[in-house]
């Protein structure tokens, strides 16, 4: 079926735009960038149509990449039902976001660079999804990390952007370290990195109820997943990653790349199912992340930060789903989340675009009348994420919650409470942005305030062009109706469903929490806008703690970063480098100078003296040959 064409199109786009984009006109760049993704999407559709129904994984072998002893790694692409879901999400949502970016990035510098990176990201993401062994998956994994770094630091003239890029990359390195070790252990245990062979091997192993090799592998893989998918303890990079352009946030840091961790855990479900301890760890981490991020989201004023913490929180739900054994529910949530979170980010981008770069919620307000389409589509997304029944978010989240209830009721309650928080903070942002009075300055003096939007100050908030609102509408429809796509049924051959009856009360609870959260937000930010501040004042200490994101960054800084820097400075720099290496080099130099000052006496500059030395040496050589026994 020529699966290789799927990532090849974006790669071609990247090469064309990256190498020659400087000389291309904008329409041509658009054509190449969006066209390549479009072709990729169409090829995905054709492929899946041809393969339907994918009862058995469809494998394609291209060539042997590494052959060394028993290590045999080939470049294999494979499509099964899980991959099919991800292919559709990546190319479909990717296509919409590419389209949107054409409008959003219109006035930005480095236009071709942006689209080249975006296409490169598509290539690596598709490679990641299509890969049929851990090493190839790792290639995609690292590649998307690279693109994430490049795109976060897209405004590389700003220090905070490059810092955020570095942070994302370095934090991900810790996760990748875990992933690599996990892959090494897998190879040691199963003698291969090919999915088919590894999972066959794993299925023959007994379930490990105590800490063992499988648990180790799974925990190391989980470390990798927490890095890529921004889970505790490695979630700190994602909020900062909002320094990148908004389409990047939507595509990479909401819809696709951050779900790679979930994909990897789901892909390795055969391993995880044999390591219950690791499963529990996954669930606990997911739950804790979901709750923690939701509370932080309550207090943020930067619209993108709010959604970023929301993303972290939702990713936590997905991990929870995987951890409690409902892999298909987790994947389902990946899909719905891709719809509504991409929509949220794109909507936020439209707002920012309309306000010429303003991101602070406190300077918005009453935007509903300026940008009705954005307002309506964002409302749809907010409803979906809040968990209003029959919408996409509710469909997938409820499945996770039910599974959690069956696994452990306390998890369910925490998760449900978090769902309420989610509804509250999302609608808080919505109310602050779209209702009430416009609190921003109408003059374009804030034109330079936002990053990169300089020179684009209209002063008046305005609706975005159709090229941006079109994808918003499409995503809004998907957010509203996406819940009826029964992904769990589709994935049933791969991940068994545990349909057991749960009490009606339990089914009802999420909807109640959703409406409760929306209502509270309505009260706090629409009816009585002062109430929120008085609450914040009443719980001053707690509020400040949450507002400062539990000071996790400061904690990491003090515990990890500072010791490393200090250690580098004192031990590595002053001690090893300056003392040892420089000392050796300087010592050698001093030694040569000392020797030279003695040998210099021979360098008289008189050629005849040199000649005499040469002759003397030759005579010695000849005599030595004579003594040694002649010329024979």
């Amino acid at each position, binding site marked *: 079926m020529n699966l290789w064409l799927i990532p090849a199109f974006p790669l071609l786009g990247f090469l064309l735009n990256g190498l020659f984009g400087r000389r291309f006109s904008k329409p041509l760049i658009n054509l190449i960038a969006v066209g390549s993704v479009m072709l990729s999407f169409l090829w995905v559709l054709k492929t899946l149509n041809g393969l339907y129904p994918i009862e058995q994984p469809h494998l394609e072998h291209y060539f042997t990449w590494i052959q060394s002893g028993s290590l045999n790694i080939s470049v294999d692409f494979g499509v099964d039902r899980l991959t099919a879901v991800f292919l559709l999400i990546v190319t479909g949502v990717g296509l919409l976001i590419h389209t949107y970016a054409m409008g959003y990035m219109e006035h930005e510098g480095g236009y071709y660079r942006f689209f080249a990176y975006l296409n490169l990201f598509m290539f690596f993401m598709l490679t990641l999804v299509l890969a049929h062994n851990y090493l190839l998956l790792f290639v995609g994994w690292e590649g998307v990390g690279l693109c994430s770094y490049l795109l976060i630091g897209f405004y590389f003239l700003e220090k905070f952007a490059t810092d955020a890029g570095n942070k994302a990359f370095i934090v991900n390195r810790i996760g990748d370290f875990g992933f690599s070790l996990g892959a090494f252990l897998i190879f040691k245990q199963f003698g291969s990195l090919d999915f088919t062979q590894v999972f066959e091997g794993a299925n023959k192993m007994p379930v490990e109820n105590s800490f063992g090799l499988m648990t180790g592998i799974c925990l190391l893989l989980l470390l990798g997943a927490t890095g890529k998918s921004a889970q505790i303890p490695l979630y700190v990079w994602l909020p900062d990653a909002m320094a990148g352009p908004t389409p990047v946030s939507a595509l990479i840091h909401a819809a696709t790349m951050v779900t790679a961790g979930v994909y990897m855990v789901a892909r390795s479900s055969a391993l995880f199912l044999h390591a219950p301890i690791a499963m529990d760890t996954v669930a606990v981490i997911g739950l804790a992340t979901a709750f923690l991020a939701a509370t932080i989201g309550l207090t943020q004023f930067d619209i993108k930060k709010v959604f970023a913490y929301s993303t972290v929180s939702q990713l936590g739900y997905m991990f929870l789903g995987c951890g409690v054994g409902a892999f298909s529910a987790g994947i389902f949530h990946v899909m719905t989340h891709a719809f509504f979170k991409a929509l949220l980010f794109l909507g936020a981008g439209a707002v920012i675009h309309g306000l010429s770069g303003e991101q602070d919620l406190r300077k918005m307000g009453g935007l509903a009348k300026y940008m009705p389409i954005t307002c309506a589509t964002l409302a749809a997304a907010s409803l979906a994420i809040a968990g209003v029944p029959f919408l996409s978010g509710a469909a997938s989240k409820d499945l996770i919650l039910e599974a959690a209830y069956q696994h452990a009721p306390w998890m369910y309650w925490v998760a449900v409470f978090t769902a309420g928080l989610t509804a509250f903070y999302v609608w808080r942002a919505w109310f602050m942005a779209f209702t009430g009075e416009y609190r921003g300055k109408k003059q374009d003096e804030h034109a330079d305030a936002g990053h990169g939007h300089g020179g684009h100050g209209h002063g008046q908030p305005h609706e975005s062009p159709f090229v941006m609102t079109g994808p918003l509408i499409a995503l809004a429809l998907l957010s509203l109706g996406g819940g009826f796509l029964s992904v769990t049924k589709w994935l049933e051959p791969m991940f068994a469903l545990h349909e057991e009856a749960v009490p009606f009360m339990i089914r009802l609870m999420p909807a109640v929490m959703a409406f409760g959260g929306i209502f509270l937000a309505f009260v706090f930010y629409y009816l009585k806008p002062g109430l929120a501040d008085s609450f914040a004042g009443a719980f001053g200490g707690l509020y400040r703690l949450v507002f400062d994101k539990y000071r996790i960054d400061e904690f990491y800084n003090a515990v990890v970063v500072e010791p490393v820097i200090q250690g580098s400075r004192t031990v590595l720099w002053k001690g090893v480098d300056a003392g040892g290496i420089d000392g050796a080099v300087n010592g050698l130099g001093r030694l040569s100078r000392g020797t030279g000052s003695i040998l210099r006496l021979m360098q*008289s*500059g*008189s*050629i*005849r003296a040199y*000649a*005499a030395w040469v*002759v003397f040496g030759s005579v010695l050589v000849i005599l030595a040959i004579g003594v040694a026994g002649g010329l024979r």
Partner: protein
Amino acid sequence: MPALPFPDSVPLSWYLILSAVLFCLGIAGFVYRRNVITVFMSIELMLNAVNLTFITFSYKLKHIDGHIFAFFVMVVAAAEAAVGLAIILTVFKNRHTLLIDEVNTLKW
């Protein structure tokens, strides 16, 4: 015809000894002379001595590869003379001396 006091043919070692003598004289000139042109000519003398050795062994081995080698030595000597003499001319132009003892600094 009266018998000559030496044999009918010349032992090959005589040629080699002649070559050695010429070579040593070349060395002596190279070390002893002060005029850079004479020094240069001493080098040529040494090259000639070496050529004689080549030709001699070529005769011994009845193989003319030695001739080829001597030929190459000549060509290289020609190239060397062209460049060397050009250098000597330049040095003389800048320093107004041909005595190598006085040309003992790289930078003037």
